[in-house]
């Protein structure tokens, strides 16, 4: 790639970056050129090496080979502090702020305003308030970070990175947990930063967003650069083909919901004070119920209540007409419920355990410790799901925390599918999953439904909900506000349902 796409010299030019992990070549001779004043999308499947590249560039990982030039000068950041000093601000894939500090402390960690040798706390809080106001956040910066939702935390992380970046701003999947409105807000910020002449690296699996904001893209596949292109000259299809190395079959838009079976789960006035207003819901076999709502509307709470993560203090649940009591997840698993949680890092993976053990964990827990699953059976289950879900890994023995984010998500799905559940609850099943896998998961949900499973799926992606739901329940402020069925299920209707009473 010798032809220059823009006349300027790159602000950051990384060449020949390689990174090896045991059993994996995560990056192989990767080149990345960032021009001043451009938004550069970094694209690729799950496990393609995007996050690893970012970590190598910012000194969080030591690279095995390669050079980095900033404004023509060779640089060697060996720690994130180094790269920050060089003017590279970064938001890593998972929110990386400190839950025990206040918002302002997080925002200013390492560069607090000082007076007379001491941190000027009041000034810090004032400045933090001012900075956040620029992002449309009117919150008290002296409150602890955890007082605010994940979305707000994400915005704070972005604000921190923007404040730190003098030359380059790197955002690794910043929009995964953001709503539409918040995404727009973020785009405004990116445009401002771009106007200041910074180079912005933007990683996401949402191609719409890529095309909405980015100028150029570098596409990675299996740790190699497969191309660098000007997005104005490309279509989404071209990009997908580049990423996957194959064509993605166009999906049939027609929704085929089929006949639903008998009522499987009846939920009556289930609720918990201080957490979720009582709600009722019936789910039949062969039915996918979608849960829609804004961030913080209570989708996760709904799922958690049903699964007994938080024991409900009122209401009842019946399974096939019989009342059952679910006081904790163990009861739920015993009744063949399954919940694939939203926050895979905290609620999902058991990081140091092997991928194999992670996959059979729930099944083993249900069988009890007295009846271990025989080795051969374990191997068979694990292998079959790795194949079925196309989980990319070096070996089944590797600790699951070493998998890329999207592959962890698939492994968790495998864990619950292995229990052969009657009722499967999925909370944001496609968060952080690449386009190819996204389509596969949607296909999988339809397959499971067709096989007669009952599913409850919470998601922020309306198109996705529309694609697979037989019914959609809309939540707002932790209350059920609408239920949409059949042809009512369109993105617009859902948005309307979410928004209507907003004025009230």
């Amino acid at each position, binding site marked *: 790639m010798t032809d220059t796409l823009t006349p300027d010299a790159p602000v950051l030019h990384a060449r020949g970056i390689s990174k*090896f*992990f*045991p059993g994996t070549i995560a990056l192989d001779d990767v080149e990345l050129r960032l021009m001043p004043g451009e938004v550069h999308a970094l694209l690729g499947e799950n496990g393609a090496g995007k*996050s690893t590249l970012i*970590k190598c560039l910012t000194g*969080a*990982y*030591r690279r*095995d080979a390669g050079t980095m030039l900033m404004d023509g000068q060779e640089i060697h950041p060996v720690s994130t502090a180094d790269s920050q000093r060089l003017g590279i601000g970064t938001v*890593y*894939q*998972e*929110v*990386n702020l400190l*839950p025990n500090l206040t918002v302002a402390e997080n925002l200013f960690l390492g560069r607090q305003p000082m007076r007379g040798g001491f941190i000027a706390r009041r000034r810090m809080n004032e400045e933090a308030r001012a900075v956040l106001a620029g992002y449309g956040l009117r919150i008290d910066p002296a409150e602890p970070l955890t007082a605010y939702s994940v979305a707000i935390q994400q915005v704070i992380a972005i604000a921190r990175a923007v404040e730190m970046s003098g030359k380059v701003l790197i955002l690794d999947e910043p929009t995964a947990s953001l709503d539409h409105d918040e995404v727009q807000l973020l785009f405004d910020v990116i445009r401002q930063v771009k106007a200041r002449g910074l180079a912005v690296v933007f990683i996401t699996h949402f191609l719409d967003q890529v095309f909405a904001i980015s100028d150029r893209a570098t596409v990675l596949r299996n740790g190699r650069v497969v191309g660098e292109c000007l997005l104005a000259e490309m279509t989404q299809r071209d990009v997908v083909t580049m990423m996957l190395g194959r064509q993605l079959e166009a999906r049939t838009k027609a929704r085929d919901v089929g006949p639903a079976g008998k009522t499987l789960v009846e939920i009556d006035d289930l609720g918990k004070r201080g957490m979720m207003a009582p709600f009722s819901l019936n789910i039949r076999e062969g039915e996918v119920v979608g849960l829609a709502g804004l961030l913080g509307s209570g989708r996760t709470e709904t799922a958690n209540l049903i*699964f007994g*993560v938080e024991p409900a203090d009122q209401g009842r649940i019946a399974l096939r007409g019989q009342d059952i009591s679910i006081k*904790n*997840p*163990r009861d*739920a*698993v*015993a009744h063949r419920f399954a*919940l694939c*949680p939203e926050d895979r*890092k*905290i*609620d*999902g*993976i*058991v*990081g*140091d*355990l*092997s991928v*194999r*053990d992670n996959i059979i*964990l*729930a099944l*083993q*827990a*249900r*069988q*009890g*410790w*007295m*009846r*271990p*699953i*025989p*080795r051969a059976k*374990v191997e068979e289950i694990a292998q079959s799901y790795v194949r079925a879900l196309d989980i990319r890994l070096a070996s089944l*023995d590797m600790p699951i*925390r*070493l998998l890329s984010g999207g592959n962890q998500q698939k492994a968790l799905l495998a*864990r619950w599918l292995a229990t052969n559940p009657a009722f499967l609850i999925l909370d944001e099943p496609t968060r952080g999953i690449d386009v190819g896998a996204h389509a596969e998961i949607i296909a999988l949900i339809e397959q499971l439904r067709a096989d007669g499973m009952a599913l409850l799926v919470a998601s922020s992606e309306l198109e996705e909900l529309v694609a697979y739901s037989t019914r959609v329940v809309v939540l707002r402020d932790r209350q059920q506000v609408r239920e949409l069925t059949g042809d009512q299920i369109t993105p617009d209707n859902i948005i309307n349902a979410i928004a209507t009473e907003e004025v009230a």
Partner: protein
Amino acid sequence: MTSQTIGPRPSVLRRILPQLVILAVALALNVAVFPEFFQIDFRNGRLFGNLIDVLNRGAPVALLCIGMTLVIATKGIDLSVGAVMAIAGAVAASVVVDGHGWGTALLAALAAGGLCGLWNGLLVAVLRIQPIVATLVLMVAGRGIAQLVTEGKILTFDNPGLIHLGAGTVAGVPTPILIWLALGALVTFVVRKTALGMLIEAIGINERSSRLAGINSRVLLVCVYLVSGLCAALAGVIVAADIKGADANNAGLWLELDAILAVVIGGNSLLGGRFSIIASLIGALIIQSVNSVILLSGLPPEFNLVIKALLILGILVIQSPRIGNYIYLLKASGPQPEPDAPASSPTKEETAR
């Protein structure tokens, strides 16, 4: 000791190789200060020799570290084991002094230890008190309870059955050796032949996830502390039987630190997760070999602690993940030491609970 069913891991031998090497070095040191170290003869109806002493004297720590390994695997720690030893010894002694048989005494001591373990387990699993603080309570109060039982004196007894547990022999082999070998084998077997081992590791690594996967983490946690209490009770009985008396003030004093050290020398992480009981047991033998070097060397006792500290430091440095990585690097041009995927979870990385 056993093959595994669940959680297949690289062969047991490979896991414990570093510990074996260190043990060999420690024994070699013994030979260096005392050439007849390996000499074993049969005297007075029992095997007699330094090596037997290492195995025999290592018994209390070996027993403690069986339970401690499980506790540490759940990301916990049990500081109370020394005090529980004292309680169990005191209970056993007072029961035989009251004229009951040794079987009753053993059962009573185990019951007392179990109760202590249960208490710890409930504090940790139900009241959610951090393990180090929760067990600190019993560490402080437990010795008082033991003294309450013995009324502050050394309770001497001469029940031959009970004494046999600590000072007797079976076919010439001191009973404590057989007890810890048997218990070690039993617990390893139970933990690895069933799914318990994997489930314990899971809650140690990420308790929340494990609970959500349907694991009964509370009961498991309580059980683990219970086992630790039982192991401590057994160790306490052996120590009391060995000296034919329950010394509430001194029995098991600071042994919790030795047990924790044994587990760490066994290559188990204090942050929970993967564990190997066999490696911990070898760790206990390593510590006892170091003690043996000190005793056999004939140096003045002022130097005991310095020697022990230096030897242990050396052992741990050799085992440090960093050094391991460098060795790995020498062998194959592999990866450098570096952070793993960033952990954004609020669970703390660096804790010693």
